[in-house]
């Protein structure tokens, strides 16, 4: 077969696997070969290998290979079983019973049982536990009492036998099933250790023990994390022998990718062209669970006016931002939600790019252009605002937004800050050590993104009672109807019902625009064509890692 034909066959295989995304393990041009090493480049070094302790995206990349959960999201973000074999929800939606897989063993050979599951969720509610993942257990009955030392155990967790576990919830909780996607940790190792000491335990530093497809062999700080295939993995032994996360900065990794020293890495959009120009390399585009937006601080009286916000939205050419700054690797959205989420609403009507209309709105509100500055004024007040942002990708289009707004007479001062400074001085300023909502002087407009996991968590961002310091409603937006709908979707576990409610919420937010949704991002993974069956998923680049193989 000529290389041309191979490429065509590959292209067909890839497009097929995208269409039938739930079955990505296609055979490809030839049968998988066993053996070989995959070297995956990453700029982010893992810091904690115990998945209960403040997992960062860098930590998750690694622990994903080592641990399993009861349920896991598939390529379409629907929950499917992992360590669980099946589960049952009682008619009153308060009791969830999991049947667990049999014959699963921890990496050290100890059998996995329901006690490990009970231990994991009890630990998250433990009074001494401080790892930031309490929310995964808080819906379980008695978790709060246990955490506050009013009870000696979590009432709602019951081990029925070695392979059956039952959870009882405090009340009907819409996102309850998503809580069971938390990784399960080994009771026989961590059980005797006080959770307050977990961060210094070897399982967190360099010897995690899980049930996953790979075991950690070596953690070389600032160099690499090396894993070997788990021959007894219940999901089938991986085709490759070793998986190495190669740490380095982006530029160095990119030249390694070009030179063939690593097999794959996340590639910034600005470098996509270079990778595509290499015959031995290709790029996988993956719709990411992340969206970017421009926020308004409604503490500012002008931003409380919906028409002012509309004028901003009509003035910004989001399609052109997507095409030019992001080289087309993005999807313009009209709602503040990532496109792959079930809560996304593709039909919501937003505000099209229409500068004349933006000008008309501002004229009608009485804002007149001052010919000497080009900026609109009214009663001695100028339409001049600050826009803060932090990441390099935002720096590629912040000037475009500035120019678009200037074209309709709105002046923008761009302020780029590093992320900790932006949080400390703009989003969550403090008075006497207490975080509080930002004033109109401190924060006017900003660029930010939301990286979602499984749940849209709209209540934390738009709830009337979720203004800082309680939640993340920096916008200080409050709409009673949105509030009611948010509560409504929390009261049902039926995902299609919740999705329908969320679509209504999204339609209201698209119209009300407390945030101007910019785009839902697309992640790019550059990889060497010798790496086969590489299909990154929304919830992790190693989603089908056991099916990867190296062609030799």
């Amino acid at each position, binding site marked *: 077969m000529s290389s041309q034909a191979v490429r065509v066959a590959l292209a067909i295989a890839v497009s097929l696997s995208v269409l039938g995304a739930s079955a990505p393990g296609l055979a490809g041009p030839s049968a998988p070969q066993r053996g070989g090493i995959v070297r995956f480049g990453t700029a982010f070094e893992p810091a904690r290998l115990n998945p209960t302790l403040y997992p960062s995206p860098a930590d998750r990349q690694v622990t994903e290979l080592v641990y399993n959960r009861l349920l896991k999201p598939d390529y379409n973000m629907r929950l499917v079983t992992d360590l669980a074999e099946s589960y049952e929800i009682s008619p009153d939606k308060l009791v969830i019973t999991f049947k667990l897989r049999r014959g699963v063993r921890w990496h050290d050979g100890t059998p996995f049982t329901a006690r490990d599951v009970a231990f994991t969720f009890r630990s998250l509610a433990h009074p001494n536990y401080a790892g930031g993942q309490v929310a995964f257990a808080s819906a379980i009955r008695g978790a709060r009492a246990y955490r506050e030392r009013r009870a000696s155990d979590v009432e709602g967790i019951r081990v029925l036998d070695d392979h059956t576990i039952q959870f009882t919830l405090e009340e009907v909780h819409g996102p309850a099933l998503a809580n069971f996607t938390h990784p399960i940790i080994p009771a026989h190792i961590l059980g005797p250790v006080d959770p307050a000491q977990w961060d210094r335990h070897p399982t967190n530093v360099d010897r995690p023990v899980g049930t996953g497809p790979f075991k950690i062999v070596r953690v070389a700080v600032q160099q690499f994390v090396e894993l070997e295939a788990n021959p007894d993995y219940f999901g089938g032994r991986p085709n490759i022998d070793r998986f190495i996360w190669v740490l380095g900065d982006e*530029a160095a990794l*990119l*030249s390694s990718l*070009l030179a063939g020293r690593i097999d794959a890495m996340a590639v910034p959009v*600005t*470098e*996509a*062209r*270079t990778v595509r120009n290499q015959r031995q390399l290709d790029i996988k585009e993956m719709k990411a669970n992340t969206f970017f937006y421009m926020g308004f601080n409604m503490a500012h009286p002008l931003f409380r006016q919906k028409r002012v916000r509309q004028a901003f939205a009509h003035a910004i*050419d989001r399609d*052109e931002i997507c*095409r*030019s*700054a992001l080289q087309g690797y993005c999807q313009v959205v009209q709602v503040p939600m990532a496109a792959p989420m079930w809560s996304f609403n593709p039909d919501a009507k937003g505000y099209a790019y229409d500068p004349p209309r933006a000008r008309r709105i501002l004229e009608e509100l009485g804002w007149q252009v001052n010919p000497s500055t080009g900026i609109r004024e009214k009663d001695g007040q100028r339409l001049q605002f600050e826009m803060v942002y932090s990441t390099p990708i935002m*720096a*590629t289009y912040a*000037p*475009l937004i500035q*120019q678009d707004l200037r074209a309709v007479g709105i002046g923008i001062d*761009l302020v*780029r800050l*590093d992320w900790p400074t932006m949080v400390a001085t703009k989003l969550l300023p403090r008075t006497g050590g207490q975080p509080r909502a930002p004033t109109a002087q401190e924060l006017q407009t900003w660029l930010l993104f939301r990286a979602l996991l499984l749940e849209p968590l709209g209540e934390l961002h738009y709830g009337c009672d979720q203004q800082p310091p309680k939640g993340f409603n920096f916008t200080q937006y409050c709409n009673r109807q949105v509030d009611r709908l948010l509560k409504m979707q929390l009261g049902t576990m039926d995902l299609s019902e919740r999705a329908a409610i969320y679509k209504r919420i999204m339609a209201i937010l698209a119209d009300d625009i407390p945030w101007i949704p910019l785009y839902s991002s697309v992640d790019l993974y550059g990889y060497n064509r010798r790496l086969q069956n590489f299909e990154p998923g929304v919830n992790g680049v190693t989603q089908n890692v056991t099916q990867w193989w190296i062609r030799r």
Partner: protein
Amino acid sequence: MSRPAAGPDAEAAAVVAAPTARRTSLYGEAWRRLRDHRLAMVGLAFLALFVLAAALAPWLAPHDPFEIFRTPEGRIRIWEPPSRDHPLGTDRFGRDVLSRVIYGSRISLLVGLSVALISATIGALLGALAGYAGGHLDNVVMRFTDAVMAFPVLFLLITVAVVAGPSVVNVIVVIGLVSWPRICRIVRAEFLRLREAEFVVAARSLGASDARITVLHLMPNSVASITVNVTLDIARAILLEASLSFLGVGVPQPTATWGNMLHEAMSLTVVRGMPWLWLAPGTCILLTVLSLNFAGDGLRDALDPRTAIGRAARAAAAA
């Protein structure tokens, strides 16, 4: 601290002292020597061009350096190769690279001159104080100078940029505050040498005040070495600003500087496929710094009578 011996320097000091009486001929002589220095003349010619470009930027630049260009269909002209409209192409925001290079000369000039002014002022004052007063004060000032010289400048600059935020003013102030020790040492050395010179002793015996001696006798005689070092300081400041902006902690976008234009070249795609984005600013930095160094060399040869005397002596010895 003992006073430095006047002996070996006395002759040279006398030679320096004598021409001050006919200053015009000293500078006339210097200009003649400078004219013969071919590299220095080439450097000065380029510097004249550079200053002219900075001064006339609004008339020379074909476009507004901040304007984002679009096609008739409204698409931004990002990363376009050189064309008739844009002789050096466009950058990743669709802005004209040539206009930005021309406007960039203003920042380089501003940074170079302001830093030189700050460092020359501080350096000359402290150097004069140390050299003329001597003793404990000299010791204190010189140890302080050593301390400042020992600072890892780039790290200091990056730290300040991170804490105080990047801006042109911050860059100028910080570079200015760390680059005066060289001038300080040179002025001190000159003062140490000159204060025992006969014409100074004469002035002192006539009852001239310390201030009068410093301002009217010592300073004018140190101007030559200060000038040479200021030239080199300008070059160093331009290079430092470019390095900082290249690292992304100097002058922030959208202001065009040669350094932050080179920042774009951190991308492999740009380095490999878009030379128009980095060739021009890189060449400008190179040529400007090189010219300043040539000019500084020329000035040193032209203004320092000792090198001239040395040359004459060597010529005599050869003959």
